[in-house]
């Protein structure tokens, strides 16, 4: 008689039950994983955006605009990233995706002008959306400003950065 490869009935039942539970929660796990990837990409975007703003290195067209209208932004400033949160905002029937809005909290000490802060916030939001689109390879679905950004099942927009 073959004594190997044998399992008790209880074990097989538990294993079968575990597999059933795992399969039924697969959608939920996939959804959570997608949200997790969105948030991780958002943090990467904040990192890049705040580095560019902090070191005052900008794309050509933005640089020209800042030098005329926001000269303060041509010199660097220290930006502290605090946190990023998401708010679920229902289902969008046009894009047939669930909608979420990202809100970024950051702090800056040396820029006081509201318009300048808005420019810095816009750049951070731009890199957040770009990073999400890159992670999900959805750059071809959106516009130049990556607004809105798309993941597999989500349609993502951003609030103005909250300066605290």
């Amino acid at each position: 008689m073959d004594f190997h490869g044998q399992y008790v009935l209880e074990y097989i039942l538990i294993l079968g039950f575990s597999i059933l539970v795992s399969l039924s929660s697969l959608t939920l796990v996939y959804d959570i994983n997608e949200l997790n990837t969105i948030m991780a990409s958002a943090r990467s975007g904040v990192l890049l955006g705040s580095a560019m703003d902090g070191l005052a290195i900008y794309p050509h067209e933005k640089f020209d605009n800042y030098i005329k209208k926001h000269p303060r932004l041509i010199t660097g400033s220290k930006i502290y990233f605090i946190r990023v949160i998401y708010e679920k905002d229902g289902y969008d029937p046009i894009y047939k995706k669930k909608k979420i809005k990202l809100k970024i909290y950051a702090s800056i000490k040396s820029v006081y002008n509201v318009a300048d802060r808005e420019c810095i916030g816009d750049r951070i939001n731009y890199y957040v959306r770009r990073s999400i689109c890159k992670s999900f390879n959805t750059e071809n679905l959106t516009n130049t400003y990556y607004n809105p950004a798309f993941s597999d099942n989500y349609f993502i927009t951003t609030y103005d950065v909250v300066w605290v």
Partner: protein
Amino acid sequence: MDKNGWVTVDFMVAFMIILLTITSIIAIISDRVETVNSVQEIVEAKILEENIVGIIEAVYSGGPGCSYILKMPSKIRNKSYSITINSSGVYIFFGNNIGTEFINPIRITEGKHSNILLEPDKTYNISNTKFRDNNNEIIVKKI
């Protein structure tokens, strides 16, 4: 009976879970690595720019006769770049980006032009010479 070449069901389940976890993490990691590379590129560009500003100001402070030999790096993290200097500051261009670093208003020329282009992988002599009315000027010459 074949005692070799078989694995337990526990192992297979554990292996599948690990595999799933790793694939979901890879997307996040690759995105983060790309971000870190971009940030490093920006930081290196900024450091180069600030070094040049520091050298110009040091040479100016040193008075007439002071000079510095500046060797430009060939690339910034495998990307080509160019630097322009004029009396208001140092401008770096790489990819689609521009950065600037202001300098104290001083007269900088390369002989004729006041907009000086510093090219990658070239060497320059930055020197301080006496200009008219007891003022000094910085002259940048390609060696």
